């Protein structure tokens, strides 16, 4: 057994959360959302290409279908979760002034929630109309 392992408390080793106190939660969430986004993004791109030049009724009809509305909500949830995790790491890597870093982290998280809520609201509004 290594020196490092013997210096850690049995509870600390059992929890396996490391010095960041959150273990691999961030890393894992980034991968889970990445895997989810593979089929969702491929679906989204195909749908968008098919909607090239479409007028508003065509877009409304598209999101009126349950499958498209559900897939779009799932896409938005996965995108904004994945985005906030990724941008967070970039901020932590490149911004070293403490108050700027904290401010950017707050703006990043708020932006993800606000854009996500607005996007999901728009999709549901179209889905539930008429």
């Amino acid at each position, binding site marked *: 057994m290594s020196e490092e392992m013997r210096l850690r408390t049995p509870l600390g080793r059992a929890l396996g959360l490391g010095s960041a106190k959150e273990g691999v939660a961030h890393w894992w969430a980034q*991968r889970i959302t*990445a*895997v989810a*986004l*593979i089929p969702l*993004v*491929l679906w989204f*791109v195909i749908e968008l*290409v*098919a909607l*090239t*030049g*479409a*007028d*508003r009724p065509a*877009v*409304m009809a598209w*999101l009126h279908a349950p499958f498209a509305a559900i897939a779009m909500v799932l896409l938005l949830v996965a*995108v*904004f979760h994945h*985005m906030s995790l*990724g*941008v967070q790491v*970039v901020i932590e890597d490149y911004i070293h002034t403490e108050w700027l870093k904290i401010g950017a982290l707050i703006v990043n998280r708020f932006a993800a929630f606000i*854009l996500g809520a*607005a*996007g999901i*609201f*728009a*999709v549901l*509004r*179209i889905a539930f109309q008429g």
Partner: protein
Amino acid sequence: MSQAQRPLSPHLQIYKWQLTSVLSITHRATGLALSVGTVLLVWWLLAAASGADAFRVAQGFWYSWIGRLLLLGWSFSLFFHLCNGIRHLCWDAGRGFELKMVYRTGWLVVASSALLTLIAWIAGYAVRGHG
């Protein structure tokens, strides 16, 4: 803190450009570009949900030359981030770390994201031509 006399690693621009590092930073850059792009995606969805006038403004923007240029950049960014993301997931699974394989998958990512962008745009113009 005694950090004054520590040796520092050389600045980034001293290193030779190589595919691996360029793809690595491009993954971050495309991720950030796509994050900015989500603002316009949400704008487009809100415009469709709010009414004919708002939608016409959004659609007008997307079909303008600046809108198309941005969309070209975002479509390539999306395909690149998708392809290179799958490459990263393979690494996470412990596969593809041999140097030869790293370069092979790297060029595969470059080729496939360029090809997918091309296909999407050709298909888009074909759809529009028929509509």
